[in-house]
């Protein structure tokens, strides 16, 4: 990257590396428990539902809806100083898990709880691509 990335960067662990590799390829990957069948996010070393260590990786639809959100108007971290106001949200995926993310490609005042969204993949560095969401037409 030509420009220095100034915001907090995730530091993948061995456990989470498949998620970040997927994001770099434009895939939203979730773990799924081979024992109880539940989807798991964030990546873990064992299933938080049944404590089985037998977790596999699947590619999720990337579709979900805004479960809740806020418009951040004062940045906590200096790296976000030029981005306010921006939308911080919790998105509930079709597969069930919820994740923290940003809603992009829409004015903050147009975001609503329940709004259908789809994943977009924003490279931050060569190694790290962040999964954010934008509005989608309901199908």
């Amino acid at each position, binding site marked *: 990257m030509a420009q220095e990335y100034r915001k*907090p960067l995730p530091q993948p662990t061995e456990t*989470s590396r498949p998620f970040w590799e997927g994001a770099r390829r434009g895939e939203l990957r979730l773990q799924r428990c081979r024992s109880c069948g539940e989807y798991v996010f964030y990546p873990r070393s064992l299933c938080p539902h049944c404590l089985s260590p037998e977790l596999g990786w699947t590619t999720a639809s990337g579709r979900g809806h805004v479960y*809740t959100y*806020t418009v951040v108007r004062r940045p*906590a971290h200096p790296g976000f100083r030029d981005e306010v106001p921006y939308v*911080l949200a919790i998105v509930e995926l079709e597969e069930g898990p919820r994740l923290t993310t940003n809603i992009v490609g829409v004015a903050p005042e147009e975001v609503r709880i329940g709004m259908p969204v789809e994943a977009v993949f924003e490279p931050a560095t060569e190694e790290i691509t962040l999964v954010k969401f934008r509005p989608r037409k309901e199908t």
Partner: protein
Amino acid sequence: MELRRSAAIVGIGELRPSRHPDGRPVLELLAEVTRLAIADAGLEKGDVDGLLVAPPLAEHSLMWPTVLAEYLRMHPTFAETVDLGGASACGMVWRAAAAIRAGLCRAAVCVTGDVLDPDSFYGPRGGRPARVPGREFESPFGPMGANSGYAMIAMRHMYEFGTTSRQLAKVAVDQRVNANANPDALFFDRPLTIEEVLASPLVCDPLHLYEIVMPCTGAAAVLVAAPEIARRGPHRPVWLLGAAEKLTHMSLAQAPSLTTSPIAYTAPRAFEMAGVTPQDIDLVSVYDCYTITVVVTLEDAGFCPKGRGGPFVEEHDLTYRGDLPLNTHGGQLSFGQAGLAGGMSHVTEAARQLQGRAGQRQVRNCELAFVNGNGGIMSEEVSLVLGAD
């Protein structure tokens, strides 16, 4: 082993919150409120054999109880670091009582305090930052500390139940009336109206600046003692009648529910242990880092049905002279939040009211208090029922 009436709060030490720290190390603040609590209880240092400390946010150390014990040349037989965020104070009170009931100590001082240092809320603590999921899956998206978390709870509460900003503002305004009767409160001499709350800048939608707690410097401690000590003390003993604790999540995205907190578990159990109901309560003293926290707490504790918290706070007078006195010291919103001492302020105020020592803001015939400590993003909850004899 039963916790009910196992111990009582017999002494209070509290520093006046300040926006202008004098540069003293946090250890000196902790030492000062420990001294004050022991003196207030009419005890000597040698009588105290339990020490519980909540880790300050601004200054990091290992083994705070040992650091403080050494500083004061105390040699406790029971010590604990209680790390439940804003719920630490309430968590310390029942742990002290349990240790006393188990015979590990007879008089335990529970200590909280912090110095004002906004950077420390977000900055690295001592050592290498832990490789926890929040750093990997939340921080990259720019959360604004607790502000954005509680804002997302408020947004969801408004969506599910139609709660309004005007209703939330009423909480801040009633608590300000209380602060205006408390000379120790940061906002003692500044009245507040609902219009002013709604006109204050949005920080994280839908939360306005005046719905958000004010960080400051301060410290607070209570002394929890065995019944035989409590009955000899200079003040009315403030008995622990009920207690319960529950933790559910660190990241809000992992919370089982955004609008029902673990208080829905802890409060009914605390009431059951005490053998009372919300209708019996004379004073509500509950964590108020944000206005929405109070509304969710009142619902989950059973003061009103789920979703009715907004209309409930509009229909009731929450001031010290009202029909449901709530956070009569001003709450942290108007008294100030000195790190984890903010959570202790709800305990000290309940004790003061039950002892009849609350001065101008004294609630008449105050016999029974509900106290709630809340940590994280409604992540960790401790409910207490306290009663005077």
